[in-house]
């Protein structure tokens, strides 16, 4: 009986595991560059990343970011290409990609929206905001997910939209943001984090005593 590399133990294969994966190739071999058809820009980018580190393995996550930027997600072919350039197995890079929340091993929409639902945002309506985004994003080319603390509790409830932070957001602004994304224009400019000043520089609370800010 010949040995089938796709089914060495003769066990039924879960289609969820093999779907989207290239049949007939093992993830445990280092692919050759000439087999994988890596675009030259991606190859150059990964080589430049490897050169920054004393050990080229450190470029694993940066290389996966480059693959995701090129293909929209960490595709099996993209991972094989990175593996060929870095001289690792695709299986190794898959194991790294699967650990991290920002690297997607399944197809996702063109736009990424992460809505924080951690403690401070939860207190200020993060769950409702996430729901609003789910509803507004139904059928659109966006990937919406709840996320852990994004480090922007000062603008709670907030969302990261295509890697930029916006808040504090009203639930109605979810639909507005998605419309703006589709139109290709600026998203919620008045709610962008980069426009905010330091908290201590804004007007004091309505009925609190204004505090003298001391500087040395």
């Amino acid at each position, binding site marked *: 009986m010949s040995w089938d590399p796709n089914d060495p133990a003769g066990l039924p294969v879960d289609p969820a595991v093999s779907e989207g994966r290239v049949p007939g190739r093992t993830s445990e071999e280092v692919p050759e560059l000439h087999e994988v058809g890596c675009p030259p820009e991606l190859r150059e980018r990964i080589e430049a990343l490897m050169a920054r580190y004393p050990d080229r393995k450190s470029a694993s996550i940066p290389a996966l970011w480059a693959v995701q930027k090129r293909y929209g997600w960490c595709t099996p072919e993209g991972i094989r290409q990175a593996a060929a350039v870095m001289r690792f197995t695709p299986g190794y890079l898959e194991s790294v990609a699967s650990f991290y929340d920002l690297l997607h091993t399944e197809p996702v929409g063109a736009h990424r929206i992460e809505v924080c639902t951690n403690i401070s945002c939860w207190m200020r309506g993060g769950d409702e905001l996430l729901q609003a985004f789910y509803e507004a994003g139904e059928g659109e080319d966006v990937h919406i997910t709840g996320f852990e603390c994004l480090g922007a509790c000062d603008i709670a409830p907030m969302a990261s939209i295509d890697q930029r932070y916006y808040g504090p957001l009203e639930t109605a602004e979810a639909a507005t943001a998605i419309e703006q994304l589709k139109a290709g224009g600026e998203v919620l400019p008045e709610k962008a984090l980069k426009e905010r000043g330091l908290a201590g520089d804004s007007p004091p609370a*309505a009925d609190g005593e204004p505090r003298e800010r001391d500087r040395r």
Partner: protein
Amino acid sequence: MRAEYGETRVLLEHAEDPALRTIDGYRGYGGYASLEKAYRELEQDEVLKVLEDSGLRGRGGAGFSMGKKASFLPRGEMAKYLCCNADESEPGAFKDRELMQRNPHQLIEGIAIAALAADAGHAFIFIRGEYAAQADILDAAVAEAYEAGYLGTNILGMHRDLELVVHRGAGAYICGEETALLDALEGKRGNPRLKPPFPAVQGLYGGPTLINNVETLSNVPGIVAKGAEWFKGFGTEQSPGTKVVSISGGVRRPGNYEVELGIPTRELIYGLAGGPEPGHEVKAFYPGGSSSPVLTPDELDLPYSFEAMAEAGSMLGSGSIIVADDRVSIPHMALRTARFYHHESCGKCAPCREGTNWTVKMLERVVRGEATPMDLDIISSVQENIMGHCLCVLGDSMAMPVSAMVRKFRAEFEEVMANAGSALDEGEQHAVVRAPAETLGASI
């Protein structure tokens, strides 16, 4: 310690000026003079001495003496490394974000001086992937620093080299743990390592490595410029210096405020952050991020310092205050907290992997009204069985706040559980803490 309070801006001095972010703007305010002084005039031991004498304690959460940690690195020709931990992911913490966004050169200068103290030739800023905008700002600032000759080969003609790489993470709280950070930086899944050996001796690629938080390193240029005595003039004896404190949750003015360590916590929550929304009161607060045991309103007058928070049975941690007001259901807050750690557990150690899983399941039963009184005792027992039993303290970081909440608010847990059989939806059990409309966007 001075009698008047309010903000004391040292790290955030001039931070309202967008030009501070550029090398010309930074140098205009006297920036990089400390680097010049350290490289041209000081020996490695002199830099270590001023850092240790200053009493600067780590600002990432552990609060260990920075100078002492730097002195643990062995001497010799082997390659040594410096890692800046910019993986700020502790719920409630957003102070490193502010520092990197507004004053990247202060951090770069601090890294360069600390690299001198550690004799490191290669430095890395490990910044969380979610901080893409701040990483872009750092990329630009690092490029400026290279061009000005503060990084690279033969810095200032003093025959010292330093390569600085901005390395973006990809979304994992555990990578803020120093040994998991090292694994991630080595291109692996972010799993922690057994300590000892400590990174100072066996760290990145197995070599001596100094790992410091963004805020810790940002303090270095000032200490080198103005001396240990100047630094000790701020704060308390055991907690010298200033601290950038992130305040959020049920307060009118969430944000980052830089203060002297040791000011009353009330001054931070009420004086600077404006206190709770009108008509509401503080019910509980995390003094040091979500990993800290919650404190109650009677503890608001405690000094905000490492020693006072530890004595109160909690911790200063990263210096991030989350305020829960009377509308917040503590059992729901406990569940939200536990879910975070369950999600972020790397899975390597059984007590954390299983313990976070079981804690979430039991707390879900509690808020659904399906729990029995025995569940509260089991929850407490599980937390005890996690603590101190794993390679890192992620599990402990859930166990500490959850057990404190169960202990201090037991009556509220029992009340929620007494609604057994009514199958309350989680969403009905807490109210939304909304800012009054006029304060939304007040800082813009």
